[in-house]
């Protein structure tokens, strides 16, 4: 049935777009993993925190106002100004860099040379902490995020495909924007990590903290740098997802959508995050379209993404583009 084919194409295209959205989150994980071997559980919460901060700054919200009011019996909530989107984004980037500095100073500089699982644990602690702070700082109600990104069906594609196939494809404008931004981010990050001295240092650190120290690489510098970049990536992801669903707690759960992407693409590969995202996006959407919804009662995407990644891993245990796991004695 040609209709079915067209629908399938539309689903696949949207899958690609969804994949890009997942990849945006996965990128943050990759960066930090690449630079320190830390599996950063807090990445999702960082996205939430960044988005909340952005909205808070835009709306001129007083940080910790609720706490302050509860303690001092005051009634303050807003500064009374509205910051333009771009300025707010810049300020948020600064906040995220500050956050990176704090994280390094108070957590990871004390945990040099520890096993990966312990570093992972520390990020869990960080996630708890940040989640609490984010809520205390900006409140846990839903916030609308508006930085002027277009949303909704892209008419041009709808028209063109309608004329060509007799069925107009749906592509969300927001997804198109996300794709462009993701492409830029990935290109930049790839250049950075492959062709700069810092990029090489980053990979060295991930391999062996102590040896990196011994050749004079400053872990503090590398980590602050990388966490800042990861914070920036988190902000981008937060903006994209926040525009879709408003800014609230669940934003932190997008991390779960990024994990299969991460594992498929390889924990250490920036292009892997994109390719993995695309494969996962298309895979899960097509599966839902062809098998999930008609035969299994739907809502299969969550587990299917993981199963798909698992299947890939059985053949390539380091993911598609991950660094080969060195097995030697």
């Amino acid at each position, binding site marked *: 049935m040609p209709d079915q084919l067209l629908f399938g194409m539309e689903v696949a295209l949207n899958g690609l777009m969804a994949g890009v959205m997942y990849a945006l989150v996965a990128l943050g994980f990759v960066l930090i993993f690449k630079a320190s071997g830390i599996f950063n559980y807090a990445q999702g919460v960082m996205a939430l925190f960044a988005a909340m901060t952005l909205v808070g700054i835009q709306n001129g919200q007083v940080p910790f106002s609720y706490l302050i009011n509860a303690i001092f019996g005051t009634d303050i909530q807003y500064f009374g100004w509205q910051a333009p989107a771009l300025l707010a984004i810049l300020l948020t980037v600064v906040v995220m860099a500050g956050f990176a500095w704090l994280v390094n100073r108070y957590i990871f500089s004390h945990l040099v040379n520890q096993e990966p699982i312990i570093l992972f644990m520390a990020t869990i602690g960080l996630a708890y902490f940040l989640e609490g702070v984010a809520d205390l700082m900006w409140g846990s109600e839903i916030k609308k995020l508006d930085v002027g990104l277009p949303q909704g069906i892209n008419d041009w594609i709808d028209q063109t495909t309608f004329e060509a196939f007799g069925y107009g494809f749906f592509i969300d404008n927001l997804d198109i924007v996300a794709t462009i931004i993701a492409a830029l981010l990935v290109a930049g990050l790839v250049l950075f990590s492959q062709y700069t001295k810092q990029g090489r240092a980053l990979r060295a650190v991930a*391999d062996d903290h102590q040896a990196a120290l011994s*050749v004079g690489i400053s872990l503090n510098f590398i980590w602050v740098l990388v966490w800042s970049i990861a914070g920036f990536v988190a902000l981008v992801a937060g903006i994209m997802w926040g525009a879709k669903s408003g800014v609230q707690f669940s934003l932190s759960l997008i991390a779960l959508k990024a994990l299969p992407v991460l594992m498929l693409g390889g924990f250490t590969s920036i292009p892997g995050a994109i390719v993995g995202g695309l494969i996962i996006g298309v895979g899960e959407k097509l599966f839902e379209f062809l098998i999930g919804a008609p035969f299994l009662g739907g809502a299969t995407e969550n587990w299917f993404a993981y199963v798909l990644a698992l299947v890939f891993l059985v053949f390539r245990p380091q993911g598609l583009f991950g660094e080969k796991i060195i097995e030697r004695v």
Partner: protein
Amino acid sequence: MPDTQLDAKPDPATEPATEDALLEVNNIEVIYNHVILVLKGVSLSVPKGGITALLGGNGAGKTTTLKAISNLLRSERGDVTKGSILYKGDRIQGLSPADLVERGVIQVMEGRHCFEHLTIEENLLTGAYTRRDGGKATADDLEMVYDYFPRLRERRKSQAGYTSGGEQQMCAIGRAMMARPEMILLDEPSMGLAPQLVEQIFGIVKRLNEEQGVTFLLAEQNTNVALRFAHYGYILESGRIVMDGPAADLRENPDVKEFYLGMSDEGRKSFRDVRSYRRRKRWLS
């Protein structure tokens, strides 16, 4: 006793800095994990432009001493609890290893520690991380390292994790050379190297020392070679310095001869003929 607090200008009255001592370790104590006392008051001084050897059996504390100097100890949950370490008269205990490299002190760690996932060449290039003298100089030095270790040139595109033990050792030493340091702390450079290469490496050490004035502090089990190339030696046992002296003197010391050089009065014994396991060292009695 002075504490570990960082203060740049030591009190000259209590800590006399020898004119030509590049590095001075004064009576340090090291504790791991807050409980395990490993170094019990180690003092040594490394003259500028010299090769100083640190000798001693397994677990004597050689590695620990070197790590205390290069400040890598912190990342092993070890602490210098007493004493001071001076480099060019400055206290360096509070500095990060990276700062030290910038100041010209670099350590080649025991057990190679190459970056597994990086290629040999990338490994060498990370050695030049702190350098600011441009790509040309780095490229030249890379060539120099390859000239010293032709084997590395052959394997330059291989991931370090997949090279043989000896190749990794060369890589680690080459990497440190890339930093153009003033002082290299070498931890067991000969370990796992073929005899020819051991000679070569010490030859390189000597050349670097003579031609470029690099100062060396090397911890070494291969006493024979070490004492041949070093100017001065310290012998460390269970966290204490038990003997020190110019290398030539140490070579003649009967104990050193027996325990470290494997010579008895009749010349070298065969490993087959060693019969008793436990002998007493005179300095312990």
